[in-house]
């Protein structure tokens, strides 16, 4: 993947959307998200401020309804906040007066983020290789099969590249989803309950894969989980409760690996 990162760094002008050369990857200031549920207003994220550095592997834990998924959606530009500011690599994304259209959000997402979800969401009629190469179709980028092969090898699923999603295990499906998220060399990987559908052994394997990716490629990873044991594998650990966030492990980049 080192080679892959090198390619990302030396990439074309489209990369101007990517983050500037800034140590801080994500800077969220007083982010608040209020939902309307009928006549009732629900404060899902309440005045959250945090800074995530490049290469950090961050876990966010919390009980159901604590607002962790809403927060990761705001940080990952999947949603606009009700108030607050968000900077990616020093570049302002949301502030008090600035809200982005869906098209603008899509533009930022495709340049900066990779996403993985609990339910993998692979296209069942495409092979593993085709699923991984799919984002390149939308980027109109002629990615080589060799590079994708390397990625699949790194994730330990190269022997499954011609299989359909229905023919591989849940753990392998999540690895394919990670490969798909990584194929365009994102700056930040957002993982929302990536082990939610996996058994303990597979869950540990997936978190180890994410740790390796972060260590070997300098990728920033934000993982939401309610599995404390897995969350503790990350270099930084945040806990959410009633929309508020607290940092449990304040030390940064302390991964013993």
């Amino acid at each position: 993947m080192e080679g892959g990162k090198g390619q990302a760094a030396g990439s074309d002008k489209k990369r101007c959307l990517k983050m500037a050369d800034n140590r801080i990857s994500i800077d969220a200031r007083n982010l608040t998200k209020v939902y309307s549920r009928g006549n009732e207003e629900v404060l899902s994220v309440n005045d959250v401020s945090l800074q995530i550095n490049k290469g950090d592997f961050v876990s966010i834990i919390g009980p159901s309804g604590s607002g962790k998924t809403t927060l990761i959606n705001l940080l990952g530009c999947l949603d606009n906040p009700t108030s607050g500011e968000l900077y990616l690599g020093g570049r302002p994304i949301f502030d008090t007066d600035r809200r982005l259209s869906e098209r603008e959000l899509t533009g930022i997402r495709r340049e900066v983020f990779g996403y993985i979800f609990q339910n993998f969401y692979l296209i069942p009629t495409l092979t593993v290789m085709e699923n991984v190469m799919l984002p390149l179709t939308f980027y109109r980028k002629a990615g080589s099969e060799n590079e994708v092969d390397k990625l699949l090898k790194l994730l330990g699923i190269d022997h499954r590249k011609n299989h359909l999603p229905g023919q591989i295990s849940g753990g392998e499906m999540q690895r394919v989803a990670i490969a798909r998220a990584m194929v365009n060399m994102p700056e930040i990987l957002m993982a929302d309950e990536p082990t939610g559908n996996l058994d303990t052994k597979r869950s540990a394997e997936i978190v180890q894969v994410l740790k390796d990716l972060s260590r070997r490629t300098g990728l920033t990873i934000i993982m939401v989980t309610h599995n404390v044991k897995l969350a503790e594998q990350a270099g930084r650990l945040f806990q959410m409760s009633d929309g508020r966030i607290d940092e449990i492990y304040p030390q940064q980049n302390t991964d013993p690996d």
Partner: protein
Amino acid sequence: MISKFQVAYKNLLRKRTRSILTLIGIALSAWVLVSLLGFNQGYESALNKDIDNMGFQMMIMAKGCPYEAATMMLKGGTGLRYMKESIIDNIVNEPEVDKITPMLMQAVFDPNKGESGGISAYLGVDPRSFSAMKPFLTFRQGGWFVNEDSYEAVMGYEAAELEQRETGDMILIPEKNIQLKVAGILSRTGTQDDGTIFVPLRTVQKIFDRSGELTTIGIKVKKDADSTLLEEKLYKLPDVQIVSLAEVKHTIMKLISTAKVMVLSIAIIAIMIAMVGVINTVLMSVLERLKEFGILKTIGAMPWDIFTLVWIETLILCTTGGILGIVLALLLSRVADIVIRQILPYAPSGGLVVINLKLILITLSIILCIGLLSGLYPAWKAGRVRPLEAIRSDV
């Protein structure tokens, strides 16, 4: 790199039965449409060919129903009316007239024809003027009879095939017990001439005891002459009617237009059903995959990417269905021809459903346009999916 086309194609394979049913719907619509357009074109050109092959543009007949007269001339028929041969003298000197040919049609019941007998038609013609008016007729065997009153016959291609006759053979006129020698057999023309037995005019008049009588006079108008003026002059002749073949064609096309409207309505309904089928298939497929589209947006797809992905699915369905329908129409055009002949009051000789490359391209374009229009709404809906809503949804 995997193309959008591959993604769209593979997606259609997810619900094979649904995709195949939609394809069948589109194929049936394309079949009906191309057959209708082929009929529209084929009928008119077959009628034109029939009329052109008559060699004359106008005919004079004894007074009666003009439609019956026209049909009789085009198709052969009974219930004949007669006029005096002397009427020729009134026509031949008109300056607009180029050539004329007198004819006497006679029909007898032949118990040996077919399984339960049938009508045999004998057309008495003047060998010189008739052959001059139809120079395009060629012979498979032999040639025209020379004498005006010889007991000879020239058989149309199908008439000779049906009776298994060669030149020199004898044919018997039933009821009259008179034999005629086959002088020639015509090559296939694809017109009514193929089923006709031509006999010298004087011989027919003699055999059927119709001396000095005719059923029809064919008139070839001089090039650039005013045929309307000629018609007006001929209208003044007593006890005869003038049938202009342009008028006949117009009248027949008018009669046929009702059938055309009916078939066109069926085609429009078929297309609308296919259109609803396409919308249903693609929309169902879109609604089932809202979450998937949301995920595609998180991996870099722009609204236009999703829109084109769904549109390509529609394009694949319509192109494949359209081509299948056209192939079906080409294979079954003969069947359509037979069915149309059963329905229509009059059908000219030759192929009624003529499907050529131009029609194929027109049909394919219509099917594609309608298909792409049908795909617009589902594709637009898919393109508008917001990833967050899609991920949160229960679909």
